[in-house]
């Protein structure tokens, strides 16, 4: 019995000292290169000696983003199947290694690293949110590998190790503003979810509006996932703006458009231009609440071209007639073809060869021909304003004259001078 009360603090203290000492030892023994010194570049482990080549598909299959990202994954699989059926790339069949990003940036970073270092994939397709892309970017740069990112985003980025096949701001936001200005809009109300894309987009819109004499009568941000839009819609209603520019994301759109319709606002008197509402979202919002409203994208299922007919038919045959195709899906589909075309041109799977060969690589895509810009790794895209119709699909009401050159840093626009950043 008395033994149990013996003083044991001493050995705990010793343990403490010991573990601290071990740590200190490990630190001094294991230090690598310091800032400014060269780091031995990570050796690529991509193996292209066999009949197959591995690529990664990294999309959120669980969590809040899985709604959107699973559709992108479907498009990636479709493109890979088609390419394989046509004989593969450089005579090799493409093999997909799939990973779940779980809607969490850290998981994206972790899985990207796994795909590159453990699975030795030649390229990775996927990512959706900017947060996921920003999380993966250092991984691809440090390991010198390639990411094909298929979603429209806020621009102001150009990494050697990423190809951006979705729209940058001058291929989506600016054409949308041009369209609104053309139709006589003199005042705008900005509504967005509180994260990076809406804030950047609205900064651009503010600069554009200042230049073109459009008045910004209000700018509101709702917490991501918020479903309480009474206040914002009241303010929009009271503002008397000519139109609303909407950068809300996800379920917030449902609540926003319902409230919008319920206070009696209509597309005729105050149209809403949205940049994050595609074919899939319309169903959840309810067509009756959003009919006649506008959206800005590069692709709709209803685009009329032989390439799109083939794409839509192939997609429905593979995944079911009730499924719809959307802009990010098309961009993801394109990204696989663009990668394959670059490989064929470079006759190599090596990253530096692809980077060198990328400029001018083109693909006759469902939205029209897209061409890679070798300088900023974006692609040319045709801008389209679509209107939501009673059948739940979007129909083009305006389109740019031919594909627009990508300009992620808006260097070609004088009014955007203040927005420029040094990279």
């Amino acid at each position, binding site marked *: 019995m008395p033994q149990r009360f013996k003083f044991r603090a001493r050995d705990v203290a010793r343990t403490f000292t010991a573990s601290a000492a071990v740590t200190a030892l490990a630190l001094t023994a294991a230090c690598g290169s310091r800032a400014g010194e060269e780091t031995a570049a990570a050796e690529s482990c991509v193996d292209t000696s066999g009949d197959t080549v591995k690529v990664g598909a990294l999309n959120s299959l669980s969590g809040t983003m899985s*709604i959107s990202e699973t559709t992108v994954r479907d498009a990636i699989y479709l493109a890979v199947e088609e390419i394989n059926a046509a004989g593969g790339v450089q005579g090799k069949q493409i093999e997909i290694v799939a990973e779940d990003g779980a809607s969490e940036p850290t998981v994206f970073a972790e899985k990207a690293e796994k795909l590159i270092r453990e699975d030795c994939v030649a390229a990775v397709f996927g990512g959706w949110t900017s947060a996921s892309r920003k999380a993966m970017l250092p991984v691809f740069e440090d390991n010198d590998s390639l990411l094909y990112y298929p979603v429209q985003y806020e621009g102001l980025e150009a990494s050697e190790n990423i190809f951006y096949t979705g729209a940058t701001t001058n291929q989506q936001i600016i054409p949308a503003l041009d369209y609104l200005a053309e139709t006589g809009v003199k005042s705008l109300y900005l509504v967005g979810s509180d994260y990076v894309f809406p804030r950047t987009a609205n900064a651009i819109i503010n600069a554009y509006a200042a230049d073109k004499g459009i008045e910004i009568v209000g700018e509101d941000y709702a917490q991501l996932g918020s479903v309480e839009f009474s206040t914002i819609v009241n303010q929009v209603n009271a503002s008397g703006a000519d139109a609303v520019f909407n950068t809300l994301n996800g*379920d917030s759109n449902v609540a926003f458009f319902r*409230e919008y319709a*319920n206070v*009696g606002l209509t597309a005729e008197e105050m149209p809403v231009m949205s940049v994050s509402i595609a074919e899939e979202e319309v*169903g*959840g919002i309810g*067509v009756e609440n959003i009919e006649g409203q506008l959206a800005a994208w590069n692709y709709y299922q209803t685009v009329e071209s032989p390439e799109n007919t083939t794409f839509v038919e192939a997609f429905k045959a593979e995944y079911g007639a009730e499924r719809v195709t959307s802009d990010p899906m098309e961009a993801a589909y394109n990204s696989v073809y663009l990668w394959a075309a670059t490989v064929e041109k470079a006759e190599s799977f090596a990253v530096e060869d692809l980077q060198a060969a990328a400029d001018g690589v083109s693909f006759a895509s469902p939205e029209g021909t897209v061409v890679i810009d070798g300088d900023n790794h974006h692609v040319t895209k045709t801008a389209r304003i679509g209107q939501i119709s009673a059948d739940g699909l979007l129909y083009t009401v305006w389109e740019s004259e031919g594909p627009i050159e990508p300009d992620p840093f808006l260097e070609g626009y004088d009014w955007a001078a203040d927005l420029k950043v040094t990279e």
Partner: protein
Amino acid sequence: MDLLVGQLFTGLSTGSILLLAALGLSLTYGQMGVINMAHGEFIMAGCYTAYVTQQVVGDAGVSLLIALPTGFLVGGAMGLILETLLIRHLYHRPLDTLLVTFGVGLVLQQVARDVFGAPAVNVTVPQFLRGGVDLLGTAVPKTRLFILALAIAAVAAVTLVLRFTPAGRRIRAVVGNRDLAETAGISSRAVDAGTFFIGSGLAGVAGVALTLIGATSPTTGQSYLVDAFLVVVAGGMGRIKGAVVAAIALGTFQAVFETYSTASLAKVGVFVVIVVFLQLRPQGLFTLRTRSLA
């Protein structure tokens, strides 16, 4: 000026939504000290009840009227099952109940995702609730008036049941003093099950109503849950009166704060206000004072 009137109504309206979501929670929490984290998923179940009813019935107006009682039964039945299978066996472990019901919520969310798909589904608003009415120069959506009326009706119904029915008297007796009630021959087990049925049923009703203004998706319940909890905490456990006052106060605070600031900061503001408030009244607005040790 118009905006101010609009915002005051918004506060009331936001409050009524919070109240609808929190009413059932307040009842079950007060009754058993059980924090039911699956309450949000019961709300979600109510949303999908409205969706399914509409798919079957077709007409939006009729289906809403059918969905309200059906939602009550669906939510209530889920609550009853949860109470019987799990909560009943964890009465003296309130924190464990919280975690267990969180697990139940996760499972229910995934079930909804597998059955109905991850994207939001559309529940059409009936024709007679579309558009707004003019109130002191502001357009007030009819859907919000409907929810406000429903919240009032729900509070009235709960109050009447608690006050004037034998079952309600039993519930109040058990809330007041469980042991004493048992010696008086009340089966606290039956009362618990009954309370849970009513509380969860109210979540179902809330779900049906919320389809009028928000999205119906597997994560719908989550968006309301934390706010609903704050209402219960601020209102004082088990006090319907407290829940009503707290919901309207929080709703108005948020609506007014949001007008002068951002919605995000308004949320943070609400949290700060509640922590400060608990400094003044640690047990919430209204409490049952008993001599037993808490």
